[in-house]
């Protein structure tokens, strides 16, 4: 039945082209239509460079924090029974479904004027700590969600063997558990990094959007656009799009299946 097959192929590719490929290609074209020089100048202004640096700093704090937490939380979810486990599961998934604006507002109300934790000796809201916390919140689920299924699949036999042979819990984790989950962790780290670099809504609320101070790359894109500097907005977008494409490449390298390829399946 060649006809429906070709028709479906056409429909699918037309949909992807109109929704995904053409718009992204358009931004690349708009960025470079006046030459490479303009685009380069637009992403090397002091504000753009500061935004880029700030985004990297936030990711460098948020990603390791969520990686350590992700592994620990996955072990707690899979290996141990405890009361409130369903609640832990729900809380881990919540950032996937919750509006980033709501996340930002929650931090604003907690640490801002009149909040329960407003009296801290350093600024949280409209400063780096708040932006880091908001980024940690939105990128929290990824490592947990990648590691949990792999931990389930590898089972506990090897870990039990190690501990009957006298290995402590740390040695067991480092020598037995960690090597089997490392690809899942890597995949989760890639997703976490992409989410951290791209966060907009939550950071928009807690940062106060002070140019050259609390402005990240995504905020910079919006601010340039609102100031009618389209080349600046498009050029910064292209930088972020290139990071996204790099993420896709990394994702295809760390596809989760490979993490369990050496494990014995059932």
């Amino acid at each position: 039945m060649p006809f429906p097959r070709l028709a479906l192929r056409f429909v699918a590719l037309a949909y992807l082209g109109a929704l995904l490929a053409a718009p992204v290609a358009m931004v690349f074209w708009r960025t470079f239509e006046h030459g490479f020089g303009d685009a380069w100048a637009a992403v090397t202004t002091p504000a753009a460079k500061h935004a880029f640096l700030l985004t990297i700093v936030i990711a460098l704090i948020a990603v390791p924090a969520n990686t350590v937490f992700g592994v620990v939380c996955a072990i707690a979810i899979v290996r141990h029974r405890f009361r409130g486990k369903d609640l832990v599961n729900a809380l881990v998934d919540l950032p996937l479904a919750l509006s980033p604006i709501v996340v930002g507002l929650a931090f604003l109300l907690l640490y801002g004027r009149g909040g329960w934790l407003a009296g801290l000796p350093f600024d949280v809201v409209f400063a780096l700590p708040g932006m880091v916390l908001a980024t940690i919140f939105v990128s929290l689920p990824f490592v947990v969600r990648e590691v949990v299924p792999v931990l389930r699949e590898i089972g506990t036999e090897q870990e039990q063997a190690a501990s009957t042979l006298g290995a402590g819990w740390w040695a067991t984790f480092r020598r037995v558990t960690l090597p089997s989950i490392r690809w899942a962790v890597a995949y989760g780290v890639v997703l976490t990094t992409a989410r951290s670099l791209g966060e907009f809504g939550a950071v928009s609320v807690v940062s106060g959007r002070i140019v050259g101070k609390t402005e990240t790359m995504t905020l910079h894109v919006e601010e340039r656009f609102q100031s009618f500097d389209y080349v600046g907005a498009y050029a910064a977008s292209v930088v972020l799009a290139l990071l996204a494409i790099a993420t896709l490449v990394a994702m295809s390298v760390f596809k989760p299946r490979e993490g369990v390829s050496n494990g014995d399946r059932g």
Partner: protein
Amino acid sequence: MTARAETLPRPAAQSRPGAALAQGLATAYLSLIVLLPLAALVWHARGGGLDAFRTAITEPQAVAALKLTLVASVAVALVNALMGTIVAWVLVRDRFPGQGVVNALIDLPFALPTIVAGLTLLALYGPQGPTPIDIAFSRTAVVLALLFVTLPFVIRTVQPVLIELDREMEEAAASLGATAFQVFRRIVFPNLLPAVLSGVALAFARAIGEFGAVVLISGNLPYKTEIASVYIFGRIESGDPPAAAAVSVVLLLLSFTALLAIGGLRRRVTRHDAVS
């Protein structure tokens, strides 16, 4: 295997300090990062009393924003159910040059910052775009932006099920005289349904809370293209956190509901996997 494990003394007992540590760390981290801010949000939402809460969420502009968010998200879920299934089918069952690249591109909306997604759509379909189409500042634009960010969900939940699906069943049905449509309706569709629904629920949940992709292209016109996230943002900006918190609690409840539905569907999908 289970019987043997039960007769032996549990070696896991040795790893107790690790267990307690993992559990304690995970709980503390989650409480500090997720639970405490959300508790503050709910606290502030009810701070002005139940009447103030009710006034805030029945404000006509808030109602219009919530309604648009819900209607647009339902529309986006339906389009995703259809198009996501078609794309997944083409990626699994069809063969054409460049398929690997197309397959990799599907994840782009996950990796691309939402503000960039909105900007790309505006560049092509906005007033300065090369096409005669100009949908900027319309409800169509809201739906389009939501379709962009939710694109991968249905495709990525249906794809693995379609790969695992035993083609012998379809071949048997076809050899017994079933038409292509009958094979799809009686064999393929029932097998895919839990995965489609699970992807649709994920897309719906994502659409309900979306902000970055919509904020540039929708123009945020009150009563027309203003979605709930943008309304909340506007309330924060104009110094009215209690109203922002009240509408946020409504969105929070919607997210929770969507998550519960996803959890239920995911259990159904896994059970299906375990049987096959």
